[in-house]
């Protein structure tokens, strides 16, 4: 006998359940509405748009699969995807590595005051807007007047022109992104570290394990779910990078910092090719979904879940 049948036999039970459901819907309705208007609606719109040729100013024209076919023959796209994956991969590696190292360092600080200060100091750049950060680093890396170049010159080192050299521009953006966003990964790592039961560490220490062994066999496995989360979040964030590139290099020099979202913006809002831009947006969606799915499939190999 199903629960529904039992409830229906109780007087007023059905009505009560309906009321509870209605209340539930009422509470979630603002979120659902926002989701429909700002996520689901535009997503469906993007799918429709990808089948059109539309320059914003004149009537859209149906072009079938032409925009998707163009994705495979676009000579610029491979370079753009390469830049994006390099940026995303570098972000994951640097953020996880330095985030974890900083979290370990701060977690082991004995002084509370110093610990609080370190937390704030490391997280602080993340609170600054990308626009301000971008302009700040344009000044800092200025080849003539920038602090970096001037200090290097004082010790006799001649640095490359970071933002004007195609070989250095993307690494420079990766570094700036690390400086700005590391605080977020650090906080996640720190939170993860603090969930590692101290009893386990104490037990390992009693058994004579060295600090390195404790880290490798106790801390790291227990941190792996946190690291898994950080990996996913960092990849998605990195794949969406736009603001600093638009402000600092505008995708240059020579396209060396043009990432996929920058390219999407160029196609949609500079070339007025909204249909193709929508196709690129769907490609981004597929890639992000695909990589995230692969990450989930591979998690059993390294994520400690018990």
């Amino acid at each position: 006998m199903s629960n529904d049948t039992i409830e229906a036999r109780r007087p007023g039970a059905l009505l009560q359940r309906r009321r509870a459901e209605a209340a539930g819907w009422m509470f979630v309705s603002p979120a659902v509405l926002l989701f429909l208007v700002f996520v689901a609606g535009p997503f469906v719109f993007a799918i429709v748009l990808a089948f059109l040729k539309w320059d914003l100013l004149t009537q859209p024209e149906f072009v079938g699969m032409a925009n998707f076919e163009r994705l495979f023959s676009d000579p610029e796209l491979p370079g753009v995807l390469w830049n994006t994956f390099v940026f995303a991969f570098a972000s994951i590696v640097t953020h996880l590595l330095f985030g974890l190292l900083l979290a370990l360092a701060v977690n082991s600080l004995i002084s509370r005051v110093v610990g609080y200060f370190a937390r704030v100091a490391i997280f602080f750049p993340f609170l600054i807007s990308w626009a301000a950060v971008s302009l700040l680093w344009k000044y800092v890396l200025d080849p003539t007047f920038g602090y970096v170049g001037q200090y290097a010159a004082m010790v006799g080192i001649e640095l490359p022109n970071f933002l004007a050299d195609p070989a250095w521009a993307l690494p420079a953006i990766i570094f700036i992104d690390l400086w700005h966003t590391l605080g977020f990964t650090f906080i996640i790592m720190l939170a993860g570290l603090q969930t590692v039961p101290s009893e386990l560490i104490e037990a390992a220490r009693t058994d004579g394990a060295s600090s390195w062994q404790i880290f490798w066999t106790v801390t790291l496995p227990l941190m792996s779910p946190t690291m898994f989360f950080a990996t996913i979040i960092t990849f998605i964030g990195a794949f969406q990078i736009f603001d600093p590139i638009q402000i600092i290099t505008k995708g240059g020099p020579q396209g060396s910092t043009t990432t996929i979202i920058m390219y999407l913006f160029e196609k949609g809002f500079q070339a007025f090719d909204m249909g193709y831009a929508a196709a690129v947006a769907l490609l981004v969606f597929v890639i992000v979904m695909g990589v995230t799915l692969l990450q989930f499939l591979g998690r059993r190999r390294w994520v400690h879940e018990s």
Partner: protein
Amino acid sequence: MHKRVKGLAKAAAVIAAASMMMAGCTAGGGGGTGAEGSPDSGELSFVYMGDADQQKAFNALFAEFNKEYPDIKLKAVGIPSGNWATFSTTVATRLAGGQKIDIIQVATEGQRLFASKGILTDLAPYIEQDQDVVDDYWSDISPNLQKFNEEFASGPDGETVFIPGGFNTMAMYLNTSVFDKAGVPIPEDGNWTWDEFVAAGKQIKEKTGAYLTGAGSGYFVDVMPWLTTNGASTFNEDWTKPTYNTGEAVESAEFARSLVEMGLAPKPGGQFDGNTAFKQDKLATLNGGRWPVLGIRDMDMVDKTVVVNWPTQTTNGSPVGWDAWNITKNSENKQAAWTFIKFLMSSEAGEYFAEIGGTIVPARESVANSPAFTDNAPEGTVRLSEAMSFATPIPSIDQGAESQKVIEEAWATIIAGQGEAQKTLDAAQAELESLVGE
């Protein structure tokens, strides 16, 4: 449960369809006919490019208009986009989003784009309606400006869709205190050659340590002046073929690079603050059209600045871009829009705008030569207006933003020393050819 999911999907589809309908209905408004409205009342939406610095002057101008036409509620929206390509994109997006705009102030870089889309009203009936006003205006502006407006900013069938407004040519603002300290004379008649420019720069560098000029890659302010003063341009005269890799263009780019190599301009790739350096006597020249005057006034440098022509290699040259006003087909108040355009064409408005800090050269020559424009401005300011006689309209094809990116990117590569000039401009030329061929 299954039903609920279906319901949600339906709702999403309805929203998407509604978005599509909204976009479809408003896109371009090519078929929209709008309405005539009343010439002295109603609501009017005017979109223009203006950053926070220029906002005060624009607001004062609008207030002046409302003194005369209190029943026209002017909703003026300044878009601080920084360049005309971004401005055009922003306006196009707003139109697509359903925003009602009666008049769009568009500069040369976006005029052909808007004109080619068939979204602007043919102004012939309005011109005919007020022929005397328009004739008075035509007779007081440079014939070149009128000619350029016809050649480059007509509608798809040759109709007049724009009335040209103020313009900007390029000149150099010389810091007389740096020139004096270095013992370099200011070019007396405002003309000097590339060689004289370099010689001055070397002496200035040696005697004062100041930079001669900035090194940028802005299409209008950095690329075109060096091209036009060497008889080159990015496109041919009717903008049908790119000419970015001619010998003259290559020579211009190499010259711009040599300024960096000689240490006369700071290395590109950072955030060089020209105004501050100019104020601190660490920079000898500021480059620009009329717009640097606001900064020069703020820095209290008007009396220490002289405007001269851009240095030349073969001939005097300058790019020119001009504002132009139109009435959109979707406008519900075309008569009021025309009233506002007539106001903008008037001597009074030109003088008022020039006095309160407009960042353009007034279209009316009588205003450009009047104290309204030349007072509280550096000596030689009138050269900006005179430059119209030898100026080249900044080539702005339909794919303006894309071509601008290609042009600027190539120039930036060369002046940063990251690519040989001929090779880099050849590659850019190929890209521009593909854009024109599209």
